[in-house]
């Protein structure tokens, strides 16, 4: 049993990113309902931020500023007003993926798989979690779904390892759900109510790598049509309470 005082002791190591993953997850669940601990985390995160100034002084190369700006020129901020088409992005998100033609899908998948291979190495998780995820991805009988929003908005990829009965979830550029809220994934089979695949949250940099067990109900279907992501109260909802923010169709890869 962890007392309130002991929880508070975790705020400093949490801000330093030094908790073991099980401890971190337990603390994050606690944070959802504890304003006192959230305030401690905010405070220690500022202290940690100042540690950046403790690095030895170094002069960045002159061209670096230009590279930073050039990179920004390639992509737009998520939902920046200037370039975006007018419809609300929630509505757009629901329609976008389904509108993509088969040829384009194949082309995008190649790019995505390559991007994924590159990014797996840098996914924000412990080395152990990453290794475990890789083992799952390379097994037989794996299906994948890519969930997309608008433009450069958040994306997610979900792999379903049938042999091991696990979903492996990678989320990118998805801002962390606020305190007391979480992201929930849904398996959508035609003619059936959406089935929860589980909940997760992203880290402060908008990334997540999560492995979720495949529930009995979904496993018994063997295959579902679509996968959606909604934001729900922490712990999840029995049924989605909003239009999916991200949505995609499962692909057969074997």
């Amino acid at each position, binding site marked *: 049993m962890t007392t309130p005082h002991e929880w508070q*002791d975790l705020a*400093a*190591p949490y*801000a*330093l*990113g*030094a*908790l*073991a993953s099980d401890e971190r997850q337990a603390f994050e669940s606690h944070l959802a309902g504890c304003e006192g601990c959230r305030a401690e985390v*905010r*405070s*220690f*995160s*500022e*202290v*940690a*931020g*100042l*540690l*950046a*100034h*403790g*690095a*030895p*002084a*170094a*002069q*960045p*190369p002159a061209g*670096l*500023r230009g*590279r*930073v*700006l050039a*990179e*920004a*020129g390639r*992509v*737009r*901020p*998520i*939902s*920046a*007003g*200037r*370039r975006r088409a007018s419809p609300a992005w929630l509505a757009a998100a629901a329609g976008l993926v389904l509108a993509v033609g088969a040829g384009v899908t194949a082309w995008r998948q190649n790019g995505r798989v390559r991007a994924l291979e590159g990014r797996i*190495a*840098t*996914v*924000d998780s*412990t*080395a152990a979690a990453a290794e475990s995820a890789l083992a799952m991805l390379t097994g037989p009988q794996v299906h994948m779904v890519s969930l997309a929003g608008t433009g*450069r908005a958040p994306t997610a990829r979900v792999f379903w390892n049938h042999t091991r009965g696990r979903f492996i979830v990678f989320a990118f*550029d998805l*801002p962390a759900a606020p305190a007391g809220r979480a992201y929930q994934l849904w398996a959508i089979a035609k003619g059936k109510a959406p089935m929860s695949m589980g909940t997760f949250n992203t*880290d*402060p*940099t*908008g990334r997540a790598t999560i492995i979720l067990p495949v529930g009995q109900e979904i496993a018994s279907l063997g295959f579902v049509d679509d996968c959606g992501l909604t934001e729900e109260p922490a712990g999840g909802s029995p049924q989605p309470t909003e239009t999916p923010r991200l949505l995609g169709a499962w692909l057969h890869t074997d």
Partner: protein
Amino acid sequence: MATIPKVPVPDRELVGRMAEGEDIALGELYDRYGKTLYALALAIVREPADAEEVVVDAFGQAWRQATAFDPARGSVGAWLATIARSRALDVVRARGRRARAHERSALLSEDGIAAPIAGLGPDPSRGAEHSETRRLVAQALAGLPEPQRVAIQLAYFEGLSQSEIAERLAEPLGTIKTRMRTGMEKLRGLLRPLLEGAA
């Protein structure tokens, strides 16, 4: 080049303008934090070319996610440092542990474990405000008992968990936990003047 206004625009306003797609605001933010983030990245990845990649990647992420920045959760500086540190640790992890272990043994034997912590010397090439911040941070770190400073440094600059630190230093886990917590509390006290100005 961006023109520099006489009254400095608050950081959070720059982030708001980035969210609108203004790349001039990104340039100004780079002028404020680029050097700090580069130094942070270099302290973690040790290779200038990798540090550059980290900085480009970190500002790219800040640019894309500017709309998600929430001032209630912390300052712009802490947000940027979190992103850059996380990207830098990704690079180190992707690179594998082998080369890293070699560097560590050199670090431990020659300069003591606290080597990456900045010295107290002046840095004439930096703006006065940042020099002052660096000086205060270096002074605060120097004010910690070494075991506490080492625990914090291994977590922040090397991305080690408490149990990894305990293993590395061959100390009981409970001891490391206490050192880290006590050290951070002490730092928070010593850095109070900077923290109050950070909002």
